[in-house]
């Protein structure tokens, strides 16, 4: 085993729970893996620090390793996904003003007429380019009869700024993970109109990513890391443990928000099971299809090959098999 502590990056969100709990409840220690957690303020940091070797492993949006591998975004890098971390938790919120225009209730087909009277292009925020949130938003707008590329504008807003930008009227809605949806609702500024479970049921939202060469060079370390994370996921999903999970995540060095908000945010998230833990290439392929649908990605060739090179269920199976964990 390595002498130096492994550096693991996370973005403070409800679904970073597996990394935080594995550390706080001693699952890493149990596996003999010394770990140092690094809280990162942006997904860009996570990607760059992992790509350039300043992190050994990181929590990522499910699409990020694909985007880096396909060369769609700013940095091309060979990441692999040996395990999924969570599903659910994201949702689309529309501003109260927008809902008023739609007559109070939400029906997708009322969206386009409600947006037609705006003085500026209807603007919707997401957390990162090519994120699951972006594809959720695009799906929602398309359902509402709006072409997100020509009739609307998608912008990136850091999650903590979402609610204030909605209040200022800069944006008409957004797609983000909790607590930022519940918060807008509680303040009467907006309402959740669709959750990730409505849009993409059974889809992985966050994953663990490592560099491919690191995975090749450190098989035992990777297995130990995955065993610790799987144990944490299982522990988190036991209902009796949720209050403690919320209390730990709420701490100033982690999410730094009230435990009640974390607890509410955790409700819609699943951490343990064949889904979301097995990094099924079919999951990757589904996201690649969204990229193709929205013309972010041209060409059809080699899509399944790419999916299977990045989403490595073989790496997961190596651990899930020996650890007596759910396997399909």
């Amino acid at each position, binding site marked *: 085993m390595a002498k130096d502590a492994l550096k693991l990056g996370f973005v403070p969100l409800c679904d970073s729970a597996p990394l935080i709990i594995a550390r706080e409840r001693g699952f890493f220690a149990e596996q003999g893996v010394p770990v140092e957690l690094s809280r990162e303020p942006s997904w860009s940091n996570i990607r760059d620090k992992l790509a350039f070797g300043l992190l050994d492993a990181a929590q990522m949006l499910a699409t990020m390793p694909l985007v880096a591998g396909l060369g769609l975004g*700013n940095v091309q890098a060979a990441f692999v996904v040996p395990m999924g971390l969570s599903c659910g938790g994201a949702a689309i919120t529309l501003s109260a003003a927008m809902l008023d225009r739609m007559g109070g209730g939400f029906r997708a087909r009322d969206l386009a007429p409600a947006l037609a009277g705006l003085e500026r292009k209807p603007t919707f925020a997401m*957390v990162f*380019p090519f994120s699951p949130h972006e594809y959720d938003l695009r799906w929602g707008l398309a359902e509402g009869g709006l072409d997100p590329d020509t009739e609307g504008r998608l912008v990136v*807003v*850091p999650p*903590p700024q979402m609610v204030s930008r909605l209040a200022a009227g800069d944006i008409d809605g957004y797609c983000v993970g909790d607590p930022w949806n519940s918060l807008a609702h509680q303040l009467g500024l907006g309402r959740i109109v669709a959750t990730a479970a409505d849009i993409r049921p059974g889809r992985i939202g966050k994953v663990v990513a490592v560099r491919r060469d690191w995975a090749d060079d450190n098989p035992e370390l990777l297995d130990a890391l995955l065993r610790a994370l799987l144990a944490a996921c299982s522990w988190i999903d036991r209902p009796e443990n949720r209050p403690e999970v919320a209390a730990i995540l709420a701490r100033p060095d982690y999410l730094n928000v009230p435990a009640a908000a974390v607890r509410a945010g955790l409700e819609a998230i699943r951490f343990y099971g064949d889904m979301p833990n097995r990094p099924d290439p079919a999951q990757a392929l589904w996201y690649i299809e969204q990229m193709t649908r929205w013309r972010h990605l041209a060409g059809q060739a080699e899509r399944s090959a790419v999916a299977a090179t990045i989403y490595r269920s073989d790496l997961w199976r190596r651990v899930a098999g020996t650890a007596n964990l759910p396997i399909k």
Partner: protein
Amino acid sequence: MSLRVIVIDGEPDRAAALTEALRVQGYTVVGRFAPGDDLRRHVVDLNADIIVVDVDSPDRDVLESMRDVSLEQGRPVVMFAQDGNAETIRAAIASGVAAYVVDGLRPERVKPVLDVAVARFAQFRALRSELDKARASLAERKLIERAKGIVMRRRGCDEESAYRMMRRMAMDQKARLADIANRIIDADELLG
């Protein structure tokens, strides 16, 4: 033509120092912003070639999407991370600096700007750690003075012998003088 640079940094002193250093090197700093300002608009309006950003700023993710926004202006903005300078990028990110550039800008034109930023960030960090040290030692000196006063009052001795007693205690217990001072102050508060 001199390159146009935007600096995005939440530390006003560091941002000012970096701006000055870039000016001295002949660059035009067209804007200096704290995170959270309306970045998108500034980047488009100011027509910059390079954006230097503190990696601790959440606005990095906003800059990632400038690729699309700035396309409207025909000047896509991309992260400075071309092949062949991985070590430069790694060192920059490790020292807290990232850069976004107008696509097509040659790496050899970007690197000097990045070098100036990395140097300023390193200098700032060194300065701050020295400042922290100075502040800590000042605080310790105050503690020791206070403890000395307590010993003088309780023992009825002069300053020099009070100091000697504390020193001896520190040596015997293999503790730092400031820790001994802390204990004396605590005990004094407890005993009244």
